[in-house]
């Protein structure tokens, strides 16, 4: 059964929580991940690689232009599932 957008969003949040070792439940879909996690562009690229492996998709860098919140990130992933 295909994932819903809500499920994808939840998985993105869980993966980011684990990857950046933040307290579970502190990340929300509308959060700006650069601001909330205090990460730099290189760390954001590492997260994208983790997400690609998890969802078994390719996320071209250009698709990520201007994307900085978990919800939009999940939408971009959902469109490629």
């Amino acid at each position, binding site marked *: 059964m295909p994932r819903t957008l809500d499920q994808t969003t939840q998985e993105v949040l869980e993966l980011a929580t684990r990857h950046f070792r933040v307290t579970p439940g502190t990340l929300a879909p509308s959060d700006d991940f650069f*601001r909330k996690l205090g990460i*730099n562009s290189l760390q954001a*690229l*590492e997260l994208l690689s983790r997400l690609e492996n998890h969802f078994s998709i390719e996320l*071209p*860098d*250009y698709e990520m232009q*201007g994307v900085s919140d978990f919800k939009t990130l999940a939408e971009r992933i959902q469109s490629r599932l």
Partner: protein
Amino acid sequence: MLDLSKYSSIGSALHDAVQKFSGEVCLIEADRDRENHRLTYREFEERAKPLAKALQDTGYAAGDRASIIMTNQSKWLISAYAIFHSGGVLVPLDYKLTAAQQWDLLRHSEASVLITEYPIWRQLSAAADRRALCTKLRLVLVTEAPANADLAGAQRWEEFRAAGEPALVPRQRADIASIVYSSGTGGQPKGCMMTHDNYLEQCVALTSLYPFWPGVRYLSILPTNHAIDFMVGFFGPFTCGAAVVHLRTLRPEFVREAFAKYKITYVSLVPLVLKNLQKGLQARFAELPPGKRRLFDALVAINRVLTKSRPRLWLSRRLLPQVHSAFGGELRAIIVGGAFTEPQTLQFFYDLGIPVANGYGLTEAGTAITVNDLKPFRADTVGKPLPGMEVRIANPDSSGIGEVTVRSRTVMSGYLNEPELTARAIVNGWLMTGDLGYFDAQGHLHLVGRKRNMIVTEEGKNIYPEDIEGAFDSLPVKELCVFAADYIWPRRSMVGEQLLLVIHLEPGQNLTDVLRTEIVRRNNQLLNFKRVHGFVLFAEDFPRNASQKILRDSLRDSLTILDRATVVQPL
């Protein structure tokens, strides 16, 4: 290499380069483990000329401005070639800026043509209200748009071609070749007007120290809109018949693979990426079994001794083959730019037999001012002035420290539409860099701080404290402002620069937990590299002028006499 003294423009030099090196590999474009293109100079020309002809057929003429907003890829360079061939002025913009910022710069530059990628155009189109302000913009070309995409008035780059030979439009050396934006305070656009002479002279100077030739492969990672990559990732290699390698993804794992796969000769990185590379290598070395680790450390020590006076690449490659093969075995130097690099990082790579060409430059100076010539390698300085660069320390103090000033044919002609700003930046022909430094007995420049109230991050981002203050607007205090800590308390270092919030509380107000929590909350909403690291409670009214603007230098003087260690409260 072409004899650039014979050329009057970038366009004419590039034209002859593609003829002279027609059979050599010019561009390789890869996406992950796939290779998108591999073009010879002849094939490059076959793609660029129909674009130039189509541009000229629309009436595009000498001096017309055309902007490129693209990630690093083959179409960036093909488009730039077409613009220069047609006598145009290139306006390279940062693809990482927001759509609103890009529109503002397009308007400021008065570009009549925009060449961009579809995902970027999708964002730009969404900010249509700003587009209306770009009255000069008459043609938009979009690359790689999906078949059914709404192009919002743009044309497909791939279909925008015309048959026939385009005219090679002549330009003089003093003509403007490009307008390169560097960030200014308060979002004020600073469009550096670079002449053909600036680029031609810089190219000769740089390639005299770090030469290119057919067969050299430069990995282009820093955005090509930056002065460094434009020079060492486009114009420099092209005038020497070398190849440029573009990656469509910059994930660290694919970048690492590219070194070995494409036998990279040179690469440019910002300090943040270089340090990340160092961390990755150190982690791998730490995993070695104790015996192998001791042997490895001994080989590194031998390499350090044998390369003390100058690099010996062939020797280092034999002593440390695993390290060098991971980088492809052909790497001659890593060029680092955009911000100051810590000496221990530079030494780490040099000890492995990988020289890092650290230097110092400004867009306004035409990229590099000083570069380490590796004769011998020095990790503690930013090197010596490039050939043709006059560098002087203005108003030196008793230790020889003063503002670094530069006079050279590579210095920009000025800021676009900003005569006052230009007059402050270039005084009697000398570019005032705003950086503080001194020369040692060997003629190496040491940078020790900034004269300006700003910081530069390891990602090469210029941060102006005034631009951070908005994040603390309406904080319930009497007044506040943000400073670069080193501007208040100079510390003779260019790394680890920090921002500080200076707060003046209302009479009788105390610093409560609620207020502190609110400061932390506001701070955390900023991007990580814009965050303040601490705050200072200041007990007096801020000095202000008649229009109530804070007199920052006077306030700074009042803060300088305080003890940094005791007044700064970390956040």
